[in-house]
Structure formats: C-alpha cells, structure tokens
C-alpha cells in the first residue's frame, strides 16, 4: 500500500498494482470510513479499481495532516468489515429494436442470439466502481465468450438504458450519451435519478443480475416507472 500526493489538494492511496475483489472491498471499506468519520478538511473520495483518490480542502488542512490521518485510518481499518453489497436484478429487453448490434455480434462471436442472451444473463456481475458519467456502472464478470471489440467510430447518441459490451466489460448507459460499445439490449430501469437519494441506483460493491424481458414487459415497466 502506498500513499502519495496528487496535486496540492488531493492524495492517492494505491492498494495494489492489479485489481482483485479483495482490493476493491478494502477500498470500499476505507471509503465508507472516510465518509462516516471524515478528517478536518476532507472533501470527498473517489474509489476506483486499485486506487482511492482523496480530495481535501487546502484552507483547512495540509498534505501532511491529511496523509497522517489517512495512514492512521489505514492501520485501523484492517479490522473493519467491508460492507456487503446488495444484489439488484435488472430487466433487459434483448429484442431487435433495442439491440442494434446483437445479430452482428452473435455472428462475430459464432454464437446464436439466444446463446448470447443466456451467457449475458447468467453471471452475477460486480459493480466494481461508478464513473465515466453519472451512475455508469463498471461491471466485472462478463463471460469470456462475450469479449468483443468496441466500435471503431462511436455512435453520436446511445439511448438511455442501453446495455452494451466492450472488451471484458458490460455496462448500462444511464442516459443518452455518445458511446462506442456493442449494444445488445435495453433496460427500462432509470439508473440515474438526479432528484432521488441516492441519485445512482447502483453503488460500488453491489451485484447485478440481468434477466430477459419482452418488449411488452419493457413498455409496461417504463410506463410504471414514469
């Protein structure tokens, strides 16, 4: 474990070179501790796969003070229990109208469309972190058979709720943005709700299970949510 300064108003704790479920749990535990018992001048922390970035207020503290506090906390928190993530089931409609890349992707992977859907809905995915854009989950656990390259030219607008795969990852676009992932379905669940508390349905450390729904169910769900 290593702590170093990052600019004049942040520090970075590196928990290891490679990411692992243990490291991510440890990062979440330290993050939770910082949030529940913040040091003087603590602004916020950004958890990632191997690092936790801690932002502090220069008016209230110095790097040395912040570093001292964080190292003390790291020594203590080895005993802290990492919080258990929730399992959240997310309905996905894999119908052609919502899955512009599914047929081509299945052909590329030498699988049938149904096999792609079965493979995609099979694992329990870990929300490794939230980032990139608001409420966007980095999901870990995609079956190797579904690894696929991203589009060379990103789409200018990917509709909200689109479920995609790219490289070793799968994810859900929380709102319409440009994006280069292969789109294989869409969920009616609104992942980002700016006026709700918390605004992101998923939190780092949660588990996601996808289940297939029909187009009719998609619209029924969307209507209910609205």
């Amino acid at each position, binding site marked *: 474990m290593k702590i170093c300064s990052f600019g004049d108003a942040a520090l970075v704790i590196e928990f290891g070179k490679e990411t692992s479920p243990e490291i991510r749990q440890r990062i979440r535990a330290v993050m939770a501790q910082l949030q529940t018992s913040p040091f003087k001048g603590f602004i*916020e922390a950004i958890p990632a796969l191997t690092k936790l970035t801690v932002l502090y207020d220069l008016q209230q503290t110095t790097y040395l003070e912040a570093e001292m506090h964080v190292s003390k906390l790291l020594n203590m928190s080895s005993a802290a229990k990492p919080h258990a993530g929730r399992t959240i089931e997310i309905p996905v409609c894999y119908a052609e109208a919502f899955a512009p890349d599914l047929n081509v992707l299945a052909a590329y992977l030498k699988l049938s469309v149904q096999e792609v859907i079965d493979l995609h809905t099979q694992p329990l995915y870990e929300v490794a972190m939230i980032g990139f854009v608001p409420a966007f989950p980095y999901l870990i656990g995609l079956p190797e058979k579904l690894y696929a390259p991203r589009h060379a030219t990103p789409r200018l607008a990917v509709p909200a709720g689109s479920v995609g795969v790219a490289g070793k990852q799968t994810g859900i676009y929380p709102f319409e*943005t440009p994006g280069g992932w292969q789109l294989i379905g869409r969920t009616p669940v609104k992942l980002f709700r700016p006026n709700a508390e918390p605004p992101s349905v998923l939190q780092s450390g949660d588990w996601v299970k996808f289940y297939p729904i029909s187009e009719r169910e998609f619209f029924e769900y969307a209507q209910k949510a609205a």
Partner: protein
Amino acid sequence: MEVQDAGLLTTVQDLGRWGMQHLGISPTGAMDTCAATLANWLVGNDATAAVLEMTLMGATLQVETDTLMALCGGKFAATVNGQPLPLYRPVFVSAGSRVACGRAELGARLYLAVSGGIDVPEVMNSRSTNLTARFGGMAGRALQRGDRLSIGERTPQAQKLMNALKRRGKVAAAPFFISPSLYSVPRSPLVVRVLLTEQFGQLKPESQTQFFQQPFTVSAHSNRMGYRLSGKPLEFQHYEEQLSAGTVNGAVQLPPDGQPIILLSDRQTVGGYPIIAVVASVDLQKVAQANVHSQIYFQAIALQDAQELYRAWHRAMRLCKAYLDWKLNTLLP
C-alpha cells in the same frame, strides 16, 4: 431577467457540486471560482450563490426589476442601455434596462452575479449546471433566448446599497471595486505552475525537458471538461496501460497522441489516461481564463510552496471580503 441573446455558452454555476464523484457526478461549478466569488461578494451574496458564467461571447439580458449586479472575470465589452458597464464593481441597474455583456477582449469567461443570486432549484446541494447528464442550473442546459431567470432575496446590506445607488440614476456604479492586485486577467503567454506526478518520470527525458520548455497552445476543442493543448507531442519511455482512477481539477492527462489535456470542472470523475502533472490550485483560475490560441508554459512547483501560495491567496481574499463588507455597510455620501 429575460435572456434576449444567450451568447456562446452561458450557464448557471455556483462553486460546484462536491461530494458526488464516487457516483460519477463531476463537480461542475464555475471554472474561475475566484471571479465568481468576487462577483457574488460585490453584491452582498455568499460566495456559494449561483451566478451566470459566460464564455467568449456574453449574453444580452432584459432586466425586469431593479437589480444590483456585478460582472467579474475576463475583460468583456459589456454595456447597459448602450453605455459602457463597468466590471469589478457593484452596479445598480433599473427595471427595463438592457444589459449586453459583449465579447471577451481579454480572458475567456465572465461572471454575472445579481444580488440575491440566480434562483434555480438546488439539485444535490448545488445549482451548477451538469451539461453531460443534463440536470442542475437552468433545466440542465445552457441558457437560451427567451429563458426567464428568477432572482433570490437580497440581503438588507445589499438593499441599502441599492437604494443609495438608485438615487443617483437609472444606472449607477458604486465607487468601490476589486483591486487588480487581487484579481487580474492573465495575458498570453501564461505561466501555469504544476505539481509533477510519478508518471511524469516515465516520460522520455527529452519529453520531460520539452514539457517545461515549449509553449503549448490552447486548442479550439477546449471546453468546460478540459483544455486540449497542442505542442510537439510528448512520449513515454515505457507506456504502461493504466487502470482507470479518480481525477482532479487541473490534472494534466496525456492521451496516446502525446498532446496534454488539462481536466477541468466538467471532467469525467475517473480516467484511464496517464496523468503527468496537476495544476496548482492557485493557478486554476488562470487556466480558466486562457482563451483559444493562448500559449501556456508549465513551471514546476513544490507541494509545500503550492499549498502556501494558496493559503496566502486565501488570506488576501478574506481581507477583500472584509473590505467589501465594510463598503457595503457604509452609506454613500
């Protein structure tokens, strides 16, 4: 106030939506927090009140009620009813006036504060506009022609100053202003002080030298997410693929094309490109005022020096606040 012309990019901002980056929500907020704070203080607001941030070409506003306002930031050719509108001081503007914020003559961003603050709903404890996720500020977007902005309640102090100025005419500027020694708009070439990161050491030695010796030009593709710089490309000695990690305002990212990007208020909360340096907090406002085609020279600064400079700047700001409070409490002759 009604927006008659929205200018190039005018958004509602405050000092940012902090504390939500673990959910991917960038801090947003005024790019030049110093100018936004001073504009607010000039009209008796808290530093955290919402202001309008204008970019290169200012907005034109029809003022519908008597207003006390202040413009701070880049030097824009602002007018009120066709007459020059002075910057860096409180100005009384009567109902029915037309305020045109004009074009940037120096700097890039102008902040308009009105006494009482721009009254838009708070989302996650902030009124800043998040253009990426389209929430906060004015319906999550830049202002458009025809938008009507509500104004919050003035402090008694500000009301008193406004009444005093009102006796002087339809438009009247207060006799006090922000000293240029506290706030001045940087001219190109800018010297931006940076703290180096570990990854800086992985650059080729000639690229390390180049980073400090060559001027970088601010590209036209710069925006509130980041300033794209162009110069002779920088190269890594050995490039290690990075796992995405948290970013900060002022982080100098180096994508594979070797052209640095300075990440700013609307940046992504995590990024995978190497970060070779971070701009000193005290110089972020300089970057925010750098215009397209401005030149930037980087200069290294030690952590302790950067933190001390910031604190010194903050002390100067507090003094200024005390001065303004005293001025706002002193009735005009």
